[in-house]
């Protein structure tokens, strides 16, 4: 027996599904389309009210992107958490998933508003560029609008139907909705990604940029998939860090023990999500970079050499901050159980390796030298630090950093448990052997192939390094889960018993992540240099020049402050919505 309302729901889902697959069925090359690139001069760019058009579009785009990333990422892990809840039948997961999606639903309307702001500012400040792009992408932009409807409908049903669709078949329908929501959201992102990667690596047009109807070619351009992958992973990490900040905010302003315990647990899970997604992110980044080189050596060198080389030093500082903050949060979290005392001595070794790896990662290829140092060294090259400036050293360092962050995780998991299985010693030995072998392999690959063979192998060696890291993490986690099956509790895990310092680590994580995303958004766009569409559509506005890193950092900082202010508003509004007050004598009594 299916109730009427469920029937109606199923129809809605069917419509959404059809909306989502529609683009695929009619994606056929349109005949006779001809979109040409106009030649522009600086007077073709409107100047409105003295606003710096580049900064205006830059901020609008970045703010939209932050919110969009958040809004797309949250349903991904909400779906996963909800599934875990269904699997374990632990209601806490269901409640947490609902709280996450509640935060994102307010952010959703802000995303749409900012998207509108971005579109308007683009059309106002760069009308010719937008005429060209809408000419090329007319169909996909139309489907984008349609999909946005589908996304809204699914999200609202998913959120508002949460408590209605509980238990049995209804829960399964709700889970399917979650899946559908993610599918539509991802599709939306893929479409928008196609537009921007088209600007980086145009495809489906001739050398003069004339578009003759090869829509799929324009969408499926060279950097589309690398960006897609990188963005999905980064979005999840970013989304996790923002909800982590939400939990930290609630934790710090909580009044009762129960509330503290709840938000501590929520913050822990958010941090777990952020770090799990952060670990593969460097690899997605390397893949993207390799593809950029493959697309154009010039773009690659612009990215990694020259002026932008220093941007990666800033990036290294930020990622180092992320890793240290995430590990620090885990170490602080060990205080939740008395059983963790056994593991405190190991913290300093982990910290040592992470900091040392970070220092290697941070060492720039071109050193900033005073004249005296230059004279003492006899040149800009440093015999011992120079080799740390290139890729093999950095690959090795980042792999070690990731491995030791995984060690932090394993130790944290063990902090309040005592294994009871018979093969404890063997299991531990196996894990230690695994880590030692993995580290040795990473070091050998990095040092031997990095410095004693040819460039081809240098690049190639990074792949086995990554595989080693992933294999070690996966296998050791599997061994660990068997090893601690049915383990005794040494001391209870007391959620809520963490110092406030650890919550600031969560804020640091969110701020650093946001700032980092802004910075990388700048370079992604910046490597096009003075082109609207690389090598095809030249930017002739007065803002065609590439700004200095300091300038970019300031714009990003302003953006982060605005974003944080808006996020605080979102947190606040989601808090207000659950408050109810009943003023005495206000309403007339019946």
């Amino acid at each position, binding site marked *: 027996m299916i109730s009427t309302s469920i029937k109606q729901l199923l129809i809605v889902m069917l419509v959404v599904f059809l909306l989502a697959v529609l683009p695929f069925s009619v994606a056929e090359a349109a005949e006779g389309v001809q979109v040409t690139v106009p030649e522009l*001069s600086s007077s073709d760019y409107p100047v409105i009210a003295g606003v710096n058009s580049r900064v205006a579009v830059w901020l609008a785009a970045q703010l939209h992107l932050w919110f969009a990333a958040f809004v797309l990422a949250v349903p991904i892990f909400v779906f996963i958490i909800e599934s875990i809840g269904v699997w374990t039948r632990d209601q806490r997961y269901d409640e947490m998933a609902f709280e996450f999606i509640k935060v994102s639903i307010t952010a959703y309307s802000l995303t749409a508003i900012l998207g509108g702001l971005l579109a308007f500012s683009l059309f106002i400040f760069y009308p010719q560029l937008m005429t060209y792009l809408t000419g090329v992408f007319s169909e996909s932009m139309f489907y984008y609008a349609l999909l946005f409807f589908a996304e809204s409908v699914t999200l609202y049903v998913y959120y508002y139907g949460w408590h209605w669709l509980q238990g049995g078949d209804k829960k399964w329908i709700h889970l399917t909705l979650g899946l559908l929501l993610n599918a539509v959201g991802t599709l939306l992102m893929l479409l928008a990604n196609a537009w921007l990667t088209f600007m980086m690596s145009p495809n489906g047009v001739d050398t003069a940029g004339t578009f003759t109807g090869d829509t799929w070619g324009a969408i499926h351009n060279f950097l589309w998939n690398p960006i897609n992958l990188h963005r999905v992973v980064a979005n999840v990490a970013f989304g996790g860090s923002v909800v982590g900040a939400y939990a930290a905010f609630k934790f710090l*302003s909580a009044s009762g023990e129960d509330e503290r315990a709840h938000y501590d647990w929520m913050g822990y899970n958010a941090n777990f999500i952020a770090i799990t997604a952060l670990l593969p992110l460097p690899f997605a980044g390397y893949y993207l970079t390799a593809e950029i080189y493959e697309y154009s050596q010039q773009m690659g060198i612009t990215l990694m050499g020259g*002026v932008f080389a220093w941007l990666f030093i*800033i990036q290294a500082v930020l990622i180092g901050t992320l890793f240290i903050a995430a590990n620090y949060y885990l170490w602080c979290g060990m205080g939740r159980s008395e059983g963790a005392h056994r593991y405190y001595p190991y913290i300093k070794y982990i910290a040592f390796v992470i900091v040392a790896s970070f220092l290697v990662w941070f060492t720039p290829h071109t050193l900033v030298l005073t004249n005296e140092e230059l004279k003492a060294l006899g040149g800009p090259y440093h015999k011992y630090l120079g080799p740390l400036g290139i890729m093999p050293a950095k690959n090795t360092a980042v792999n070690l950093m990731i491995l030791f962050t995984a060690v932090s995780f394993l130790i944290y998991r063990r902090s309040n448990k005592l294994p009871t299985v018979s093969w404890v010693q063997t299991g531990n030995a196996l894990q230690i052997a695994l880590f030692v072998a993995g580290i040795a392999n990473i070091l050998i690959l990095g040092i031997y192939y990095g410095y004693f063979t040819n460039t081809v192998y240098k690049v190639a060696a990074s792949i086995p390094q990554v595989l080693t890291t992933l294999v070690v993490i996966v296998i050791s986690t599997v061994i660990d889960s068997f090893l601690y099956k049915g383990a005794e509790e040494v001391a209870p895990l007391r959620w809520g018993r963490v110092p406030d310092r650890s919550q600031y680590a969560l804020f640091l994580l969110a*701020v*650093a992540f946001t700032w980092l995303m802004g910075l990388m958004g700048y370079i992604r766009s910046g490597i096009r240099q003075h082109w609207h569409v690389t090598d095809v559509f030249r930017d002739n506005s007065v803002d065609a*020049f*590439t700004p200095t890193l300091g300038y970019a*950092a300031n714009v990003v900082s302003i953006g982060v402050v605005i974003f944080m202010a808006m996020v605080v508003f979102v947190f606040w509004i989601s808090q207000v919505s659950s408050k109810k007050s009943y003023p005495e004598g206000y309403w007339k009594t019946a």
Partner: protein
Amino acid sequence: MTQFLKIAGFSLLVISLFATYSNLGIPQIKPAPPPSQESVDLSSMDMDSFISLGEKIYNTKGTCTLCHNELGGRAPMLDNLGEVVSARLEDAGYKGSAANVVDYIVESMNEPSAYVVKGFGKVGTNDQESPMPDVRSGSIGLSEAETLAIVAFLQDSSGLDVSIEIPSNVEEVAEVPEEVPVSTGGQGSQRAKYASAEEIVAILGCGACHKIAEFEGAIGPDLRLIGQSRDAEHLRQSILDPNADITEGFVAMMPPIYGDQLFASELEMLVEYMASLK
């Protein structure tokens, strides 16, 4: 509320640390500005670059140096305009309507016969008609902005104060090739082949000196019926090495560059065309 302020303060501190490091901790290298482009954007130009644009056009597209050069007496040198213009404006032989230096130079380019410097007139016109073509005409085709750029260059190079304003009219965006297209046949050349001999004549600007097709140049020999007196062999030589055999009454001044600017098949096309002019 205190919690909120603490968190806000902490976040702002972190952001400002990142910003400070990016501004002070790493070198602020100014990336190179975008490379200059062939089609010139006038509104973002200062006077110096406008003058150098004029120089470029003077030497290339304008083909001015073909005649206004130190080699021969086909056209006056222009490096002393500052001294002579005011005298010319008062001269009885001046037929134009200009009242100042700028107008005079523009006029001299658009209506060259308004004033003909003694000894530089068309043969047989008693210095009443100038052999110089109108710079707006087909083979040269300068726009108003380009003409003004040349005026700026001429004023500057002859020691005058530049008194023109950079035109703001966007329609007049000047297009300047980086140099005269020199085809050495290497991988550097990318232009499409010329389709006909008439096109070659128009593009290379033969008509600036010669009478050929619709052009009325009066510096070099009349080529309208050249096929009657010269065979293909001689014509080819006259293009590749113009000074090997000078027609009587003319001086050696045709530049030997045209062979380099043409593909072999284009050269043959041109030779064939000229040989057929009977």
